[in-house]
């Protein structure tokens, strides 16, 4: 170590004193975000030991299936119905899209069962639960429009069974299941954006509050009370 050299730089705290003085809305928003979601919580290196269970895998499996659905859906929409109804490669990508949806819902339902039976809304995680419910509902609407786009007898049957229910709610004027072009646009623009946005918010909330501990974990568990590890700290919010 050379004595005359420059002193090693001190690591800067996430929220500096200058930040605290700033009165702009951008500064206030940055401070709020860094307090609620510091980088080590957003992208953690480690998780508590109770996360080492297959039941905790299904949330990530659902997201993996969603990635397959979004990528295959992008390929389908760029090539168009003639391609995916007629060509062999089009059939294959269309099938990847369909089976991605089947797996997406199966993983999501197992994730839902797991979280329901461990009362995952505990410890200030109400909004995490609500965004999960919302993503399930929006996904069902998106899948429904997808089944209408099969353009076969099944799709026709589903559309004409659903139209009366939708018309009864008054939404039929804006969401007309008998209008194939309109349903196609809902399916490839607004609804995927809605699913992606709600799922992203759900994941950010999981990062903010930490993965919910098992019901039988003691409040005195060192992983839930210690403040020196990010995941443990995040789980200290249990009420």
């Amino acid at each position, binding site marked *: 170590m050379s004595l005359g050299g420059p002193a090693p730089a001190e690591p800067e705290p996430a929220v500096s004193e200058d930040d605290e003085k700033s009165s702009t809305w951008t500064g206030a928003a940055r401070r709020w975000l860094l307090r609620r979601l510091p980088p080590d919580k957003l992208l953690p290196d480690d998780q508590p030991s109770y996360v080492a269970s*297959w*039941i905790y895998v*299904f949330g990530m499996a659902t997201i993996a299936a969603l990635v397959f659905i979004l990528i295959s859906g992008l390929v389908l929409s760029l090539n168009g119905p003639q391609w995916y109804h007629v060509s062999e490669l089009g059939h294959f990508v269309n099938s990847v899209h369909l089976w991605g949806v089947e797996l997406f819902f*199966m993983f999501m339902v*197992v994730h839902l*069962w*797991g979280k329901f039976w461990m009362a995952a809304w505990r410890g200030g995680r109400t909004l995490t639960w609500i965004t999960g419910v919302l993503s399930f509902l929006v996904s069902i609407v998106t899948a429904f429009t997808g089944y209408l786009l099969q353009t076969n007898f*099944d799709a026709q049957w589903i559309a004409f069974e659903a139209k009366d229910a939708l018309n009864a709610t008054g939404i039929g004027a804006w969401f007309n299941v008998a209008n194939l072009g309109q349903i196609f646009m809902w399916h490839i623009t607004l609804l995927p954006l809605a699913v992606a946005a709600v799922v992203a918010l759900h994941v950010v909330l999981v990062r903010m509050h930490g993965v919910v501990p098992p019901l039988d974990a003691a409040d005195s568990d060192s992983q839930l009370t210690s403040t020196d590890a990010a995941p443990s700290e995040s789980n200290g919010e249990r009420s």
Partner: protein
Amino acid sequence: MSHALELLQTASGPGLIFSWGPFAIQVGNLVVITVMIVLFVLALFLPFPGEKRRK
């Protein structure tokens, strides 16, 4: 032509349906629900690999 007609008949068919008294379910739906229940039970009881190495 006959192949196309066969395809149309398959696509327009109601599918196989199991029924027990007043309860009836299409075989595809039954398979999906069964697979989800099996996955759930396996997830609860199967050991997770590398469990001992974690803190």
